[in-house]
């Protein structure tokens, strides 16, 4: 097959011959992105409520939680519809499967935001004032929040672009997440010095754990981004080896 013939111009950006198919995939992805935006706002509001002791903010987070759940249902419905109507293959199939899993991770991240809000409300019920949390504990929680929130936002950007570099960036941030989480736990291990009761300590610890889990959901999203872009399922792979492989590939 040495003689070449003029290959047709196959502009991959052109989309499907059936444009309605593109609209359906775009709608599905749009739902996930909208969920992501809501969840980012929820996380930020929940952590603000916790750190700044703003009870109203915490209640607002709980009020808004069903929005994300309803969007998750919409996403599921759209996944069923696309599979039933279009029988997606290759990258389309990977996109649909990945978005279905990502919708689950985003929805669960939203649940974690609500969990933090509940802990904040419980702290208020336990009689915690504005200065309940020490400045260094607040700072440690803010650092953990920054790590988790940044990873999650990057995850949503990954859904928008299916870019392996974004996934790599998320994986590279994981050690900082665990370090920040460890710092909060270390402070709470001496609850007496922090001036917290056992129940108050559990509330803060639960919130810190929820933030760490949000970072984990972001990493799950990053795995799906790689699945779409590379066709490789990298779940359960050794993270260090994976990061090295991705660094080499994206150079």
């Amino acid at each position, binding site marked *: *097959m*040495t*003689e*070449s*013939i003029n*290959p*047709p111009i*196959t*502009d*991959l*950006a*052109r*989309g*499907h*011959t*059936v*444009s309605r*198919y*593109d*609209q359906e*995939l*775009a709608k599905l*992805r*749009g739902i996930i*992105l909208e969920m*992501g*935006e809501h969840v980012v706002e929820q996380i930020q509001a929940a952590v603000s409520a916790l750190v700044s002791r703003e009870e109203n903010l915490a209640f607002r987070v709980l009020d808004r939680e069903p929005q994300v759940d309803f969007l998750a249902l919409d996403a599921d419905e759209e996944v069923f519809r696309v599979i039933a109507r279009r*029988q*997606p*293959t*290759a*990258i*389309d*199939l*990977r*996109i649909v499967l990945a978005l279905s899993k990502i919708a689950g991770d985003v929805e669960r991240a939203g649940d974690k935001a609500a969990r933090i809000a509940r802990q904040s409300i419980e702290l208020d019920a336990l009689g915690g004032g504005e200065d309940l949390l020490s400045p260094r504990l607040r700072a440690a929680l803010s650092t953990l929040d920054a790590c988790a929130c940044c990873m999650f936002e990057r995850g*949503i950007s990954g859904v*928008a*672009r*299916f*870019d*392996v570099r974004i996934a790599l960036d998320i994986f590279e941030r994981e050690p900082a997440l665990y370090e920040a989480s460890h710092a909060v736990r270390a402070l709470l291990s001496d609850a007496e010095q922090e001036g917290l009761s056992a129940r108050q300590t559990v509330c803060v610890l639960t919130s810190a754990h929820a933030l760490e889990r949000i970072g984990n959901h972001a990493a799950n999203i990053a795995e799906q981004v790689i699945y*779409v*872009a*590379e*066709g490789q399922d990298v779940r359960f792979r050794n993270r260090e080896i994976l990061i090295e492989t991705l660094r080499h*590939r994206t150079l």
Partner: protein
Amino acid sequence: MITTVEEIQRSTSTAMRSGELARVRESRETVGDYSVPDARMRCRDIEVWYGDKRAIHGVNLDLGRNEVLSMIGPSGCGKSTFLRCLNRMNDTIDGCRVSGSIQLDGEEIYDRALDPVPLRARVGMVFQKPNPFPKSIYENVAYGPRIHGLTTSKAELDALVETSLRKAGLWDEVKDRLEAPGTGLSGGQQQRLCIARTIAVSPEVILMDEPCSALDPIATAIIEELIDELRANYSIAIVTHSMQQAARVSQRTAYFHLGDLVEVGETNQIFTNPQHRLTEDYITGRFG
């Protein structure tokens, strides 16, 4: 955040390009391993010309034993032309020339000394449109064995007709009306009758050229089930325009484009993670 269809298409394109470079290579060489160990048919450097026009460009492809190989591609890509090379059906077309090597169990089928008539018994063919002879159901199946001298008695022929109709999954539906005309059957039954007719002459390979394109979904499902059963005894090469059918019935899939064999591989891999961008374009419906 991006929300418009155009932006999402663009980002999908980015994802497609961000994969391994080999996955979207523009090369005209076949991607994937076209050979199989202990192949039933082995095709090398196949070129087909219709007069001055070359329809097939140096295709290499093996057909394994007890496998279904599906050939997909847009109209005019050469998949049917290639299929017809496998039992020298192209010999009947004026101005058609075939070069290269096609071996059936190690025997060169384009050898001048080889008679194409017994070859077409060994490599049977089922066509797009059911084409039973204007004869009885029985005669449709008995005709081939009779002219090839495969049976010596009426009882033996009766047994062969029954066996063939059973293998084609048609016996129970026609056993009480074997003398009825074959053309009186439904489309799906006629196609299964044609398959029974093909099986009756004990082929090694069955070629199918869009065998379900004229059938409804129920008849199609019955034929697909039959193809899966026939795989136990025969090698099957099928040309189909239905990618879902290719994904359902075959173990390997070959994608043709403008006379080139672009990619061949395990069906699961072709439909989930094709390596060539032309294959990906085609099976995802991005072909304009």
